[in-house]
């Protein structure tokens, strides 16, 4: 593969900072999980930082980004406050979703990060919906939809790619092929293992990028976004990468060998990118350490912020189940009805 040219030095350094923040954040999240600060499932993106940062770097601030249940990194790369991401993991009121979503359901409307989604393949139709809005309103916004190799076997994959091509929607579908659908390896779950061609029959051409290389991911995603935006042609991008940790924290990883993990870890996207920046004279050892230290400090602050944030009040339990209005004045649930004023009925 011909090596892509680096962007401007300050941009390169920003990417390294962003990738480092994700790495340190995820490591700390894993640690907090073992200390029972975080409940439920925790899916870490360690090893996938280049795919996240490279893809996000190819977006305009007005573009929509939508991802999967492994989505802390996307939120961070999109600019969400680390403290609010950590607070969401802790289930606190200052979390991005006020403690309603948790690890699998990050969301930051202000930054057009349109969510982490817990249902494999469930986010693809929504991405096409964002694309339809852009098309309907006649603006230049485009959408990037990330999903895993496992999702490429869902019905929504074929349905959505067909519709996106049929309606010329400005959407880039990025399958992050980390080689496993949970614990089932690619060749054991997909008859077609060259995932970039999996959309061709639906009228969606494919591109491939090295998801372990932030520059390559950025370069290919940028071109895909241009095609989607300017030519109104949806594109499927396959980003080849590898997650260094298990599917979730509760994963014994019996399905892969230590040798395989070790071989991939030599291509650690964080290390290889930093090495390249050093080799090209953009980064010295001092700066490298400083970036790492800064990331650690940011994560320390995020944990402190999350720790200080209160747990949601029981009285907020029913908030946002509905948009309350003249039509839906109150709470009509069987367990919440009593003689008094019902939830939301007191509009004074």
């Amino acid at each position, binding site marked *: 593969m011909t090596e892509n040219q680096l962007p401007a030095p300050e941009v390169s350094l920003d990417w390294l900072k962003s990738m480092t923040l994700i790495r340190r954040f995820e490591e700390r999240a894993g640690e907090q999980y073992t200390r029972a600060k975080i409940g439920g499932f925790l899916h870490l993106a360690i090893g996938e930082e280049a795919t996240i940062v490279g893809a996000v770097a190819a977006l305009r601030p007005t573009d929509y980004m939508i991802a999967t249940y492994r989505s802390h990194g996307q939120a961070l790369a999109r600019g969400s406050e680390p403290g609010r991401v950590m607070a969401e993991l802790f289930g606190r009121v200052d979390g*991005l979703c006020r403690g309603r979503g948790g690890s699998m359901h990050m969301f*930051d409307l202000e930054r057009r990060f349109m969510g982490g989604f*817990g249902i494999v393949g*469930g986010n*693809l139709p929504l991405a*096409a919906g964002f694309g*339809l809005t852009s098309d309907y309103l006649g603006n230049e916004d485009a959408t990037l939809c990330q999903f895993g190799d496992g999702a490429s076997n869902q019905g929504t994959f074929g349905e959505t790619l067909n519709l996106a091509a049929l309606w010329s929607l400005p959407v880039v579908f990025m399958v992050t092929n980390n080689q496993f659908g949970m614990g089932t390896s690619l060749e054991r779950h997909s008859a077609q293992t060259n995932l970039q061609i999996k959309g061709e029959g639906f009228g969606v051409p494919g591109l491939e990028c090295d998801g372990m290389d932030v520059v390559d991911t950025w370069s290919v995603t940028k071109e895909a976004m241009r095609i989607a935006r300017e030519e109104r042609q949806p594109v499927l991008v396959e980003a080849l990468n590898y997650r260094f940790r298990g599917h979730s924290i509760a994963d014994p990883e019996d399905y892969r060998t230590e040798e395989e993990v070790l071989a991939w870890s030599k291509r650690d996207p964080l290390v290889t990118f930093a090495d390249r920046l050093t080799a090209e004279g953009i980064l010295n050892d001092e700066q490298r350490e400083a970036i790492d230290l800064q990331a650690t400090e940011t994560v320390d602050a995020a944990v402190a912020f999350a720790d200080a944030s209160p747990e949601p009040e029981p009285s907020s339990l029913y908030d946002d189940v509905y948009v309350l209005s003249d039509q839906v004045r109150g709470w009509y649930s069987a367990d919440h009805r009593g003689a008094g004023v019902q939830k939301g009925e007191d509009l004074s």
Partner: protein
Amino acid sequence: MAEMRYREALNQALAEELERDPNVYLMGQDISVFGGAFKVTEGLMDRFGEKRIRDTPISENTIVGIGVGSAMTGLRPVIELMTINFSLLALDQIINHAAHVRYMFGGQVSVPLVVRMPQGAGHQLGPTHSHSFEALYLHVPGLLVAVPSTAADAKGLLKTAIRDDNPVIFIEHETLYGQRGEVPDDPDFTVPFGLAAIRREGIDVTIIGISRMAQTAERAAEQLAAEHGIEAEVIDPRTLRPLDLDTILESVAKTNRCVIVEEGWPHGGVGANLAALIQEQGFDDLDAPVGRVTGVDAPMPYAKSLEQISFPHEQQVIEATLALFGERKRASRG
């Protein structure tokens, strides 16, 4: 007032809302060129164009999901699924996404989406094309559920559904599309959600009819009055979420007896739910157990002779009502 068919009332509601708000658009199978499987959207493409009246492939889950995504980003989609049976293919998008997105993202977005679809048996369409699923959608917090049984309600509720910021499951009935009814002329006519209609006043028993069964209940009530001297109050809740429980409880407080009539299956049905609410909150008002008349607990058969006994008719409603009075009422008539 103008007399029109239920399908025409729906068509009028869609046309008026498309006219009123440029972000309202329609999407579904065969709704554009073909005019809709039940002709509800006839003529709309000529008037509003293909951008706003969109034919889709047969991909129910993705159609609903595109609706959810576009609703999250500012549009107001109205989706037609050809029948409620096919909505089973879209349950992931309806429940995990449409109903939950606002809550799980802490109120950052809303999903102003309407999913319209007809239900009901009686056309010999067999097990996969005759379902009644209002109970299924009633089960889900985050969804609103409307079940119009008249042309006026079809129009008024649909306009409200389109203007509301919540996802609405709008359940029409195949048998009602051709039925005529009086509909107000006022272009701003709407029917609010959460307001039951009292179809017939009475003092002896409250009969609650869901969807088409509101009409079955009304006809049964006329027979009960003529042949048994029982004056039934007939209530059509019109929306199941939100539910106008106050009107139901007030009626039961007056009549002390209640029968619920629905076309769907008995277990976990609308009637089961309403009976629980009524006994929880109106127990002291009841002189008899709450009666239920439902579809039979089996898939819908094809044979006409079997299909006709698989969903409620007036006779079952009359029998269930008489059972609540036992010997006393009958004796008093003697």
